């Protein structure tokens, strides 16, 4: 998973979803991005607002998005393992977060009690190249 700090730019052509979208149906803009394999950006208004984890899982498993999914907003280092396991390919952290801490956060567990929610679709535990 790509880890960036807050002064980097979002990928070109990215489409941002609202945190409150439940993804039962997709906006045309989002559908187009998925069809093109363009990046999708999911927002964390507060790092403890966990809606985007479910959004990412649905985008991978239900809507078969193969492109990037970027975590954006109030994103902190300790979220890294959760993000990766839910199919995020990148996390853009808020100010003051250390990318080395995030990288370390990825390495505490060699296995979990449940498989990654998105592993079957080729994301999650198998890190995107």
């Amino acid at each position, binding site marked *: 998973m790509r880890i960036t700090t807050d002064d980097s730019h979002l990928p070109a052509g990215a489409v941002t979803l609202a945190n409150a979208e439940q993804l039962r149906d997709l906006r045309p803009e989002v559908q187009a991005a998925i069809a093109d394999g363009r990046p999708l950006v999911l927002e964390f208004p507060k790092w*403890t607002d966990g809606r985007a984890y479910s959004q990412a899982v649905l985008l991978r498993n*239900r809507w078969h998005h193969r492109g990037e999914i970027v975590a954006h907003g109030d994103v902190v280092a300790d979220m890294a393992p959760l993000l990766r396991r839910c199919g995020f390919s990148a996390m853009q952290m808020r100010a003051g977060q250390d990318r080395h801490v995030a990288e370390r956060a990825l390495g505490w567990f060699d296995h979990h009690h449940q498989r990654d929610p998105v592993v079957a679709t080729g994301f999650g535990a198998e890190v995107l190249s």
Partner: protein
Amino acid sequence: MYRSTDSDRRFLRQRAAQFRDQLERHLRGELPDELFRPLRLQNGWYVQRHAPMLRVAVPYGELSARQLRQLSRIAREFDLPAAPHLNLGLPPGGYGHFTTRQNLQFNGIPLARAADVMDLLAEVGLHGIQTSGNCIRNTTSDALAGIAPDEAVDPRPYCELLRQWSTLHPEFAFLPRKFKIAVHGAAEDRVAGDWHDIALVLRRNELGEIGFRVKAGGGMGRTPLLARTMSDFVPWSQVLVFIEAIVRVYNLAGRRDNAYKARLKILVKAEGQSFVEAVQREYEALLADPLTQAIPQSEFDRVAAGFADDPIAGPLPEPDLAGWPSSSAFTRWLDRNVHPHRVAGHRAVTLSLKRAGFAPGDATADQMDAAAALAERFSSGELRVTHEQNLLLPWVPARELPALWHAARDAGFARPTVGLLGDMIACPGGDLCALANARTTPLAGQILERFADLDEQHDIGDLALHVSGCINSCGHHHSGHVGVLGVDKDGTEWYQLSIGGSDGSARGAVPGQASPGRILGPAFAADEIVDAISALVALYLRERQPGERFAQTAARLPLADWRAATDAVRTGTARHDSAPAHEAVAPA
């Protein structure tokens, strides 16, 4: 009990190492409280009134003697002996408090030593994972799981599968609010299922296949609500998929704007049938996805193997009663604290943690060791934590009952009050908990003192008194036949009294029917509340019909009668003018 694997143990060590790293970063100032707090909550660490509180998970209430001895060691070596509530002339050495969700809480361990404690817990397969925080909490079950005569299907393997599935599930670590699941497989609901976010009731369909009735949307707190049926039958191998659907819909749709309105019960009440349909749609979408996995039979078999063989020799003949003690103390103990068993010649035995001089549910380090020794000698080394904050020995040969009684008495565990007024549930309350509005421990002590006469308690009979120090309802006051809620008025301690609650067990007015208690007027002062409870008992004794339990009388007589009885004992809160009495604000 579940047989843990090398990878299970390694997982706990890795979790403890992760927490140690987070704690050290926090203590060095690199991880501010805003970022550390949710992480420590998800390892069970609250910061409380006098010292941090650790909530240790006891999976569906099952505990080994070895684990209990480690908990005793932690209490003895880490729990601060100077906690204020220890003004009871008791030896130093720390305490644990067994909770209404079958967990264990320590109230005096300094945060700087937290990582050492997590390492010690991990040594014996214990932890505090997800015992707090906005995530899926400890799955609770029947203390008689696997041994109850009225049980159709043993829930424990399913509890363990659910525990593993929900532990560090990455999608559901930051839900709108906490999430509690209870499971049982018996005719009687002894798990307060309807009061949970999800209740799973094991059953067989007409074809004899095993599955679950799934209910969702129950909860206590400011807005007591009962769970409603989501599905009458989910095949056992699909149950995790169904739960995933519920939790995902909740994660996406639950309120995030107001923590007091964020529980699943609020969403279920607001959306009603459309919530049920949303879950059904998500469930069907998951089933339609070829990559969705049901629980493999092989995984079920692996987990179930640990529970499959009873840790006893087998059925025994019923004992010859010649030579058994003839005292009323022993007879009462048999009657209240000893329970029927699935296996012939065996019993389940409650070790009561309700006695004068101790807060309900508390056990000192020495007492934990004593309970562990009883388990080793009489119960194949196994114990359960009960929803009523007692311990239970699940594998006792009936012929050992006299010896067990003597040993339990010596240890202070044999007070014959299970199910009676003296068996009251109480949260730790204001002595220890920063959230509490009022203390509960002195109240519990006063009640035990007022009703110290066992003859009187036995005459009163079955009565569930539940005491919560605040609206977070850890004392389950809503489901008490008599409920007491600590409220803060003008910065002093007041107690709101309610009647007619039920947890949905056979102890309620209508077996199987859970109900929230109804409030009896304005709150009572601290010097009135015990009199008010006594007035309820007195009215019951006066008005009961032959064989009628308190809960039944509470349902039969109008609320006004109970109200009049308790109003009559008010002193400071008595109304002297003719204006209508101010009604305490009921939960919205």
